[in-house]
């Protein structure tokens, strides 16, 4: 039996099922990161003193990662647009670029973490690094999860383009929504942690 509404929209929601599904998932993600942001505010307000992020963190590295992640969001949406234009080769190019940019983000994050550890800064050091490692660590886990999904859809998963191109385009749209959310979270994390 075939799962209904994979491609066509449900009459009651006006959406194919996966799209509503990803938005419900993203709603739960908003609650997760919302709770952590609230915790950050409380910990910061309660602390007798709080260092400026730019005195402890590497702003140029953080800014580079911001540019990389925004760039990956653009390549992601361009890959979806390529499928809408029925250009599979361009899709492969843009989607591959999205994956490479995600790896670049993680490598830079890895260098940042290594520099902090070698300077003796750990999550247990103080409330600043406790919140820094928790928020950026959880975000990095989301990036890694996105990379795994994107690699599958770029490689073996892309065979679906030949058999069911419309469903495959929907899959890329859903993966894109998740990826843009990861970008959106970083857009708030960067100034909060690095610049204030």
């Amino acid at each position, binding site marked *: 039996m075939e799962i209904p509404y994979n491609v066509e929209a449900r009459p009651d*929601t*006006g*959406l194919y099922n996966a799209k*509503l599904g990803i*938005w*419900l998932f993203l*709603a739960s993600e*908003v*609650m997760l990161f*919302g*709770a952590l942001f*609230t*915790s950050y*505010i*409380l910990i910061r*307000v*309660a602390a007798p003193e709080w260092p*400026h992020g*730019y005195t402890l963190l590497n*702003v140029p590295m953080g*800014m580079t990662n*911001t*540019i990389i992640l*925004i*760039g990956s*969001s*653009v390549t*992601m*949406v*361009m890959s979806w*647009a390529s*499928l*809408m*234009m*029925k250009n599979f080769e361009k899709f492969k190019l843009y989607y591959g670029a999205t994956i490479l940019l995600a790896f670049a983000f993680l490598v830079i994050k890895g260098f940042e973490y290594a520099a902090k550890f070698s300077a003796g800064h750990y999550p247990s050091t103080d409330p600043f690094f406790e919140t820094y490692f928790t928020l950026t660590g959880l975000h990095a886990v989301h990036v890694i999860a996105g990379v795994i999904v994107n690699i599958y859809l770029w490689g073996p998963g892309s065979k679906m383009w030949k058999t069911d*191109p*419309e469903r495959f*385009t929907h899959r890329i749209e859903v993966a*894109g*929504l998740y990826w*843009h*959310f990861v*970008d*959106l979270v970083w*857009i*708030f994390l*960067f*100034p*909060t942690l*690095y*610049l*204030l």
Partner: protein
Amino acid sequence: MDILIPDTLSLIGVSMSDSHAVDVKKTVKVYITVFVALMALTVITVGISYFHLPIGAAIVIALIIATVKGSLVASYFMHLISEKKIIYLTLGFTAFFVLAMMFLMMTVYSTQPVIR
């Protein structure tokens, strides 16, 4: 950005069968414009941080810029500028519960003695 909205609307929400290459190309231009705006705002927010403004002003400015950037990503890359009602409803509930959670935690913090 107002003049860009109709172009975006023409593509988003349509199935592949009724989409047109011309519309997609117009939408691609919107994506590039948004990308440039996001880059500029990133440079501005970092540039302002080098002025070392008082923390209150710095927080307000940084969060305003982040909110504008986030809105651009959500509106254009995530297509929220022209979505179905049920998605707006879902996000409305989410916003309500996030704000309620923040309000409750802040209220508890401000009314209870802090144990250090």
